């Protein structure tokens, strides 16, 4: 099973410990892991929200992140991007 880890800023709607989810794609894994998080991660049109960052096996997935494939042993982090200077 893939592991999904949500940022602690989502602890009101998502588990704050790693949870198992089926492989397949990032999108499928996120919502299998915890469906209540959908409106926090996706916008009205089902797009990944602008400042949500997705990391798969240590790599920042910048394009078409929801469709990105996951292996059965992948580790998926859902984070919030920070900007500024």
């Amino acid at each position, binding site marked *: 099973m893939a592991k999904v880890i949500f940022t602690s800023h989502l602890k009101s709607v998502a588990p704050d410990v790693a949870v198992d989810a089926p492989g397949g794609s990032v999108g499928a894994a996120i919502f299998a892991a915890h469906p209540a998080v959908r*409106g926090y991660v996706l916008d*009205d049109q089902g797009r990944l929200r602008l400042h949500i960052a997705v990391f798969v096996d240590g790599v920042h997935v910048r394009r078409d992140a929801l469709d990105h494939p996951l292996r059965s042993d992948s580790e998926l982090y859902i984070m919030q991007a920070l900007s500024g200077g």
Partner: protein
Amino acid sequence: MANRLYVASRKGLLIYERGAKAGWRHATTAFRGSPVTMVLASRDNRTIFAGLNLGHFGTKLHRTTDDGASWTELPAPSFPKVEGGDKDAKAPAVSAIWSMEWAGKDKPGALWLGTAPAALFHSSDNGGDAWTLLSANLPPVNAVRLV
């Protein structure tokens, strides 16, 4: 004379109460640390709506029916999905709740809600449990006083 003051701030919903002698005093803060863009209370202060803009995590709408003792997240108003919208950066999405108003004494539980980008939503008789988009593509203003 009103004895309750609600202040929607970038750091939460601040609630003040008028004391017998000492003027206004801070009673409590809800949604501490979260930007609150709109607040609407019933005349008896039992029912209160709070519109939040959580930045990374989008627009949220919460309601209490017990004077703030407990809050429930409601479905936030949203634009209907358009074909291909999940791949189209220009397809509309609500970015903030800017205005709310009761529909009138003869329509208990009915509400109006204005958003950015400019659109008007209506909740007919369910106290905000569901929202219907009435009009989009209003003039591009971010604040609307609903009367």
